[in-house]
């Protein structure tokens, strides 16, 4: 009987009822955080003495990289929970985490390239971070492609959860390998990722933005999970009831 709460955690209906009232407030809050962080970072932070104003893109770039990598683990954990306890909600979380993660990874790559042009004079540089992020992007794409390929939802979910787990085991190995590969080939003229000495007035907005990205990520995850749950459970009585209520109120 005490396990009741635990199984509720896997119920899309329970999750929807608990979250759909405040998910919009969370969204508004996340957007506010993003706007405040962006203004802070773009307008009220001193210019970098070496890179000038172009460094300000880190306020978009660094949080995107951080959250996109964390997103892979969140996706894999959700998939593992789905495989172990055979719960629908966790599969849904996993399946919506893949596109969100892929978009964040893409954002990280694009902003990195834009940052690269004024700083190093090239959009693309085969540096360890960029190469790893590209591989990570393809890992995400593989999961999305596998998901699309199966017609049966349950099979797609289980196969993707398995692939996400395999990917998670591999990510540290890939990361270390790429890192090692870069030291092997590193051209002496370029030293890109040495900036442990960031000034506090630059660091605070960055921390703020990372936090904002995480909140934004959670909001996206919750709202997309709810949307996907409604689509997946469209035949079930609770979704039917939900929409017949709405239609009824509209008519009257």
């Amino acid at each position: 009987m005490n396990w009741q709460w635990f199984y509720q955690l896997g119920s899309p209906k329970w999750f929807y009822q608990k979250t759909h009232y405040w998910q919009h407030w969370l969204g508004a809050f996340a957007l506010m955080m993003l706007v405040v962080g962006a203004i802070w970072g773009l307008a009220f932070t001193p210019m970098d003495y070496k890179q000038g104003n172009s460094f300000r893109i880190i306020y978009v770039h660094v949080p995107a990289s951080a959250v996109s990598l964390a997103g892979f683990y969140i996706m894999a954990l959700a998939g593992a929970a789905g495989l172990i306890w055979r719960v629908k909600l966790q599969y849904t979380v996993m399946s919506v985490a893949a596109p969100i993660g892929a978009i964040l990874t893409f954002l990280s790559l694009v902003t990195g390239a834009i940052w690269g042009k004024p700083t190093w004079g090239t959009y693309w540089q085969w540096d360890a971070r960029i190469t790893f992020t590209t591989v990570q992007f393809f890992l995400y794409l593989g999961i999305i492609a596998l998901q699309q390929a199966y017609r049966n939802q349950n099979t797609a979910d289980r196969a993707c959860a398995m692939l996400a787990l395999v990917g998670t085991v591999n990510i540290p190995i890939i990361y270390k390998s790429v890192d090692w590969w870069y030291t092997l080939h590193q051209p002496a003229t370029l030293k890109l990722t040495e900036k442990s000495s960031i000034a506090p007035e630059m660091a605070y907005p960055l921390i703020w933005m990372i936090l904002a990205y995480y909140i934004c990520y959670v909001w996206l995850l919750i709202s997309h999970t709810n949307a996907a749950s409604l689509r997946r459970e469209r035949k079930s009585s609770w979704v039917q009831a939900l929409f017949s209520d709405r239609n009824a109120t509209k008519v009257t």
Partner: protein
Amino acid sequence: MVLAARVCATLSKVSSTASRTDRNAAPALRLDNLYCERDDRVLFSGLSADIYCGDTVQIVGPNGAGKTSLIGLITGTGILDEGEIHWQGKPARGYHFYSNLLYLGHAPGVNISLTPLENLRWYFGLNGVKSENGSGILSDGKLLEALATVGLEDYDDVQCAHMSAGQQRRVALARLYLSQAPLWILDEPYTAIDTAGVAALEARFQEHVQSGGIIILTSHQSPKLNPLKMIDLANYQDSEFGKAETTLEAGADE
């Protein structure tokens, strides 16, 4: 529970004339409240049945009713979302269950680049004879004997790719003459088999059941097997309203 009682009643009604094993014994295979949906469509729900040693059970229903899905649930090649299946009192999974099972699927499990003999060698290498008296590895002589029984005596060194669909099915059916597994689950065993073959197969089924075995099969033909019990999937189709009434009416018709 009403449903479960009904199935048992139907089962015993059909088989009441035949001599049979002890009714009071626990069922060998127990299907309890099975539920199956496929692509958002409920195929059956609340399906329960007790199957005893010596039973021959035919799963009937029109195309798409879920006969193969039900077989998938029992053999574990499908996902059981709701309900329970017990073999001799324990969940029907793992070594406990599979060491008693002979399964013949829609696809026969015969590789076409191998000869019939090589196919059987592989199959019995994995399964053994599933007999209570130790898992003897079968000699090639025994395998050839079984192939001769299903009418393939001159084909033991021909690749299955060069054989007809019916002959390929016969390679799979040869397993029935060697395996001593108590529980046979056969999905459309008569597919592509000629009339003489069907008669031989039915004789083998009869023999297996009389020695205390269980056969669960699907078929669009009506097998000449006595006593034959039915699980009619039409009785378990999901109708949210008045399930009890429709069941009672069906019972009254009988």
